[in-house]
């Protein structure tokens, strides 16, 4: 019994220690004012858990941009990075913490559309500009006038890739394959279907799969038997790579047009030679012939030892859009920053020319890429 008592005491002490650690952090919210505009910007990202790969790229991109901006000296940004673990409750708690404890002027993130659906309304109600860098689902910026995004939604990317592929390969009949339990792949599929119908393509089959599935032979056999001209596939890269490998192995050699989820070097890593001929539309192309892109890629590689992916690039641009708006607003004020952000037009970043439309959504032209010789190249 004595031992039990001691264990309980230890647990209780640990509990109190945690609580006070939390309280200690919460108190520091002072924000000095000087000649350069000083501002605290919050970041909500996935640092632990299943989507941590995305979160790492995003925070890396933001940190790189922060170092560059702070080095110039006219805006000094204090970043507060919070983890959401990819969970809505955590994203909401993180948003509350940034808004109320850290008193940030704006938030970049969260990573997933689901998380934005929860954190967005809170930021909007509190009058804090919030910008998603990887939230591509429908209805994100419609949450409210403080909600922005610079991630190209599927509804703009997919028509570009399908349009080009249809023209080039004279596609008439298609099969659709998508993951139906993920917001991202589901809304990508909705767009694919819409576009296919608009282009009057014959849809031979619509097949579904679930996240983390390992065997797609049932769906692929059915698709192969219908002999489509192309397969439109909405998947994330882990599933997408496997799908490609299995499709090619069973002799389905037609072009694959993928959603944004396919736009990762990991697809080629997983599918190897089977990835040849995959077509994707993407806001980000690392081998683009643009000095801005080259400089960013070089700096990123030097800092983190690998090439930046789309998520790093979008986050990098988002930070610049945010700080440019801060400069335009002239002061770290949430409402003024919002108005300045909403007025962003023709910003030239690593993703190309970028503007917000009247609904604070993205206006830009995506690159259409095809996998050739084991890497993404421009598709004409």
């Amino acid at each position, binding site marked *: *019994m004595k031992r*039990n*008592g001691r*264990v*309980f005491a230890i*647990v209780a002490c640990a*509990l109190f220690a*945690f*609580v006070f*650690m*939390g309280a200690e*952090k*919460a108190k520091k919210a002072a924000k000095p004012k000087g000649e350069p505009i000083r501002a605290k910007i919050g970041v909500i990202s996935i*640092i*632990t*858990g299943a989507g941590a790969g995305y979160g790492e790229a995003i925070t890396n991109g933001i940190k790189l941009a922060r170092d560059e901006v702070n080095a110039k000296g006219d805006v000094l940004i204090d970043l507060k*990075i*919070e*983890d959401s*673990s990819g969970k*809505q*409750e*955590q994203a*909401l*708690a*993180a948003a*509350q*913490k940034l*808004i*109320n*404890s850290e008193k940030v002027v704006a938030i970049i993130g969260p990573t997933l559309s*689901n998380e934005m*659906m*929860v954190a967005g*309304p809170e930021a909007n*109600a*509190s009058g804090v500009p919030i910008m998603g860098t990887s939230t591509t*689902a*429908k*209805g994100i910026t419609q*949450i409210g006038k403080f909600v922005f995004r610079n991630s190209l939604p599927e509804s703009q990317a997919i028509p570009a890739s399908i349009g080009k592929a249809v023209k080039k390969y004279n596609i008439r009949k298609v099969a659709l394959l998508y993951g*139906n*339990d*993920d*917001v991202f792949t*589901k*809304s990508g599929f909705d767009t694919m279907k819409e576009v296919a119908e608009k282009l009057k393509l014959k849809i031979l089959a619509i097949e579904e799969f679930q996240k983390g599935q390992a065997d797609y032979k049932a769906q692929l056999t059915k698709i192969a038997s219908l002999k489509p001209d192309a397969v439109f596939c909405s998947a994330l890269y882990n599933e997408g790579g496997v799908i490609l490998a299995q499709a090619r192995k069973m002799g389905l050699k037609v072009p694959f047009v993928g959603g944004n989820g396919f736009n990762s070097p990991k697809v080629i890593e997983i599918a190897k030679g089977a990835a040849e001929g995959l077509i994707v539309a993407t806001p980000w192309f690392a081998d683009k012939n643009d000095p801005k892109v080259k400089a960013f890629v070089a700096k990123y590689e030097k800092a983190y030892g690998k090439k930046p992916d789309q998520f790093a690039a979008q986050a990098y641009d988002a930070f610049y859009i945010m700080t440019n708006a801060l400069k335009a607003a002239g002061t770290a004020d949430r409402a003024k920053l919002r108005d300045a952000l909403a007025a962003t037009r023709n910003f030239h970043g690593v993703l190309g020319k970028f503007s917000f439309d009247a609904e604070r959504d993205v206006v830009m032209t995506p690159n259409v890429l095809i996998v050739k010789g084991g890497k993404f190249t421009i598709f004409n």
Partner: protein
Amino acid sequence: MEWLNPYHLQVASFMLINAILGVSIYVTLSTGQLSLGNAGFMGIGAYTAALLSTQHQVPIPVGILAGSLLAGAAGILVGIPALRLSGVYLAIATLGFGEVLRAVLINWESLTGGAVGVAAIPQMGRVILAWAGDRGFSPESLGLQSNQFISLAVFLILLLCTILTVAFFLRLSRSRVGRAYAAIRLDESAASAAGIPVTYYKVLAFSQGALLSGFAGALFAHATSFVSPGDFTYHRAVEILVFAVFGGSEHIFGPVFGAAFLTVVPEALRSISDYRYILYGLLLVLMMVFRPQGVIDPALLRRVRRSGKGTPA
């Protein structure tokens, strides 16, 4: 009123919702049944409340009530056949139920919106603020900002719900029903021989647990204003189970404490975000090694009461 931080209130609100979920698994466990379907029942409650309020403009309390009752009814339906099973078989069957429900939520797109989920669910606090605002009330008269008021309102509602729930089940445990539950948990055949209608009480406990899960789910929907099938996966079921395993499943304060503690830990450890879930896991492992019955057990409660130095948790 600076100290009243919506962030802290938010975490406290999730603690309370999780505490209700903890009680929900405690109730089924108190008859010796291991159910992993609580995430599914929570989903029923959450979706019912969410859809009623977004598509049919039903008042929030009615939606919450309907969600709880529907989850409870589903509990009876699932409970009657499932309770022919026991132990690990029941756990697997209820886990299956949860996954089936998730698949239904994903595929019944016309009703549930599929994987995209239900957005723009009226949030309790904001509705109360709007309602009070129409009657000339402004939170400034209490020295509060509106976001403080919103979070405080949500917190107080949840606190009331949690206290009532815990009080009800504390009272229940000292009633005829509670004693029957305890008898069934200790020895089913002996309880049956003593004239306790075992099936009746088992189904009752099971549907009480389901009703509570649905209640927590409905509150969750109106606290976060967004639900999607991803919220009610087996991860959630296991999380709920861990509340009871960690806190202790022999007394109602066990899961309540477990839920509160395990919600606070990841938040308090935010400063070391890269490692916090490693610590969380380590904590659970240590727990299993040093105190497999959970933090709080009746012996501990008795000791605390006798020494009179305060109450736990």
